[in-house]
């Protein structure tokens, strides 16, 4: 196992653990305002200090981890759940009109400025964590569809697929029983990368007020709130940023490490 894999898995486990722990326990209740103790610096009873309402920053980071991870995870689920079957379908019917329509559709989604469309979607349905998931998830679909198709195409030329066809299996069954297991590693690796991009996208959306709404804590909104305080209490702005940075870094290292560990030949798309 490589150093990447160990550091990546460690960081990912740490933040996932923080998020899980927040369901059971946080040091302080983040819905209780404590104005006399506002903007305390890290150290002391509040390990990471307090924000402009006197809320404990460590508790908010823990609750924010929950939001970020949930949004990004479901968005990856949407991308995989729709993108992988579409890619498998296109590969099974390679060269047909259907294949062409699916792939052109993918190109089209790629041509849309993703952030603008995400903003449009949250404007249409109102800002919320759920709509942020949809907005991020939609742009994950073509990533998985394209990758699945390109990984599945060479498999269709292989002898074991021919054997499956000779034994009378249909295209759908071959896709599910023989193609999918062979591309699963690749999907896990790409899923990790999309997960990290999802965390960044969620942070960006909630930073401009289009993600999870108060009182749900989110790292992006913590940064937005901290923007005007950056000169008097830099820690309020620095800590949520480090949380995002370390989570994304952890997932990227995990993805790279998994790729090398599972199969050194596979390549991941990152745009």
């Amino acid at each position, binding site marked *: 196992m490589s150093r990447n894999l160990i550091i990546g898995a460690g960081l990912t486990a740490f933040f996932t653990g923080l998020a899980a722990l927040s369901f059971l326990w946080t040091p302080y209740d983040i819905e209780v305002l404590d104005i006399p103790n506002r903007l305390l610096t890290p150290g002391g009873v509040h390990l990471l200090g307090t924000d402009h309402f006197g809320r404990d920053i460590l508790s908010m980071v823990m609750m924010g981890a929950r939001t970020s991870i949930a949004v990004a995870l479901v968005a990856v689920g949407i991308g995989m759940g729709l993108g992988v079957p579409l890619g498998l379908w296109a590969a099974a019917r390679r060269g047909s009109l259907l294949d062409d329509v699916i792939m*052109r559709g993918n190109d*089209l989604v790629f*041509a849309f*400025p993703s952030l*603008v*469309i995400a903003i449009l979607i949250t*404007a249409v349905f109102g800002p919320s964590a759920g709509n942020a998931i949809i907005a991020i998830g939609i742009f994950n679909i073509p990533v998985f569809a394209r990758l699945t198709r390109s990984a599945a195409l060479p498999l269709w030329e292989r002898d074991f697929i021919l054997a499956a066809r000779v034994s009378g299996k249909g295209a759908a069954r071959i896709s599910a029983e023989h193609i999918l297991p062979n591309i699963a590693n690749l999907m896990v690796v790409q899923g990790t990368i999309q997960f990290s991009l999802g965390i960044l996208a969620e942070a960006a959306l909630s930073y*401009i007020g289009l993600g999870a709404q108060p009182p749900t804590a989110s790292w992006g909104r913590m940064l937005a709130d901290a923007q005007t305080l*950056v000169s008097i209490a830099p820690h309020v702005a620095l800590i949520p940023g480090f949380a995002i940075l370390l989570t994304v870094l952890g997932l990227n290292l995990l993805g790279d490490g998994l790729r090398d560990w599972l199969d050194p030949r596979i390549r991941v798309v*990152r745009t």
Partner: protein
Amino acid sequence: MIRFALGRLASLTASLIVASIVIFAVVEVIPGDPAAFMLGVNARPDTIAALRAEMGLDEPMVTRYAAWVGGMVQGDFGMSWTYKTPVATLVADRIWVSLPLAIYALALSTLVAFPAGIYAASRRGGAGDTAIMGATQLGVAIPNFWFAMILVLIFAINLRWFSAGGFPGWADPFAAIKALTLPAIALALPQAAILARVMRSSLLDMLGEDFMRTARAKGLTRRQALWRHALRNALIPVLTIIGLQFSFLLAGAIIIEQVFFLPGLGRLIFQAISARDLIVVESVVMLLVFTVIMVNFIVDLTYAAVDPRLRARA
């Protein structure tokens, strides 16, 4: 080549038509009547109806779609309801912030990424390579709006080298470029990290090619072979990424424009969405999609012109 270009042109046209329908449909379902929104809560129903008629909102959907597309083909992007100015004028004003910002960021990113990627590839596995790859991992993981806040904290608030936001206009080019410097750095960082990685891996692929062995065999040094042969071939994927990044920078600067209060295209769309100024949203998004599709088209054609194998495959 002509057949290839015509095929690409047909699929480009189809993409544009589908894109325009999608954009129109999405904007169409945005809740809230723009006329009611403009007149405020105390407006009388007949005033709202009159304004709806004036804005053409009571026409059937198909008529409005046709009018919108027909206008755009002739260069008429409609009239903004909130600004009372043609959308084309609004875009023309904003483009003088967004376009220079995108070019500035791309230039910074390329200036950093090319040497970094080439150096890392030529010292594969060495300390320099490890350090550069570690730095790119950080670069892709940093949320750029947070990086922007840190830049403001250091260079605007503490060192006072730059202003924390706003744009003075191009009357004083030096001041304008200065105002765009921190935003451009914030935008360039993740792009440079991605570009350096692509540059490195593309070069490493080339270093393993047979023609590189031939180049070395005929007596070129490693460095000469790298600069004369590998680099040129490695540029193709790098240019693809640069093309993608340019269109991303043009549209994707919304958040950075928000951090620095820059009057760019992103902020225009953002404000238009909040003000229900639908025609601005539709036309600007369509314009951005058009730009992305055209950039891809030009990139495809350039490759096909350079590399005949791509033509045969298509």
